[in-house]
């Protein structure tokens, strides 16, 4: 299992746990009033579940399991793969934490841009691996 996959899947598990904990807090607040601020955590709950958990887990697993090239660097160059991991997680953190930090007004936009770039890198890395060994 490549290091990039290990990092992506471990981070996705961390995001899943945070998202479920926030979800538990939100549903408890629906039953018993805890604090009015809790509703503001709803976007964090679903962004972490969709992007942090589902999308990142699938990307990490695909990077590991898809057919490898028959050259020395079997999964392609390592640097863009690391950039994919870093950009995705930096973007996600900006996306979910930004609205709570008033000094970062453009955080959502920059966060989504970073995630978009990461997905573009993923597509570039994976494109040639969407193949068969049978000719």
């Amino acid at each position: 299992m490549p290091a990039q996959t290990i990092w992506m899947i471990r981070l996705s598990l961390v995001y899943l746990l945070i998202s479920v904990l926030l979800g538990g807090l939100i549903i408890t607040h629906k039953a018993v009033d805890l604090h009015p601020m809790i509703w503001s955590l709803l976007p964090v709950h679903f962004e972490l579940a969709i992007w942090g958990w589902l999308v990142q887990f699938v990307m990490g697993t695909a990077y590991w399991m898809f057919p490898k090239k028959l050259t020395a660097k079997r999964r392609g160059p390592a640097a863009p793969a690391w950039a994919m991991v870093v950009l995705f997680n930096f973007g996600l953190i900006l996306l979910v934490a930004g609205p709570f930090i008033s000094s970062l007004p453009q955080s959502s936009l920059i966060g989504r841009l970073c995630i978009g770039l990461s997905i573009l890198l993923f597509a570039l890395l994976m494109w040639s691996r969407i193949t068969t060994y049978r000719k």
Partner: protein
Amino acid sequence: MPKVTRWFIKAGIIYFIVGVILALISEFPAINAGPLLLPVYWHMLVIGWLTQIIMGVSIWMFPRKHRDRKKRESTLTWLTFWTLNSGLTLRFLSEPFLPVVQDSFLMNVAILFSSLLQISGIIFYIMEIWPRLQPRKKRKRSRS
């Protein structure tokens, strides 16, 4: 395919079907249940279906840390299945009725308990999968 994986996938398919049916029901203006069913079908699709498929397949496909162990299904995987599914079922049976039954002690306990069960399920899954995430070289060394 291990038995626990089959259970995860079959449970996932059931949630998928029920989730889609609920989404369809919520489209009927006469029933007027859209806002009540919205969180239910979203969680049926994201946790009940997608997350359970991922869990089942990863338990099956991800390399086990100790391949020499005959038992392919650890206690943790079954704990994940039962806590997550009982938590989800309890949630789906109680959450839509929250606005109808206000300040019911029983309902509040059900919601809290369902939440704790779901969180436990996720923690058990992480405990199962986390040690499997290691480079091939390290895995080979730990086996020898």
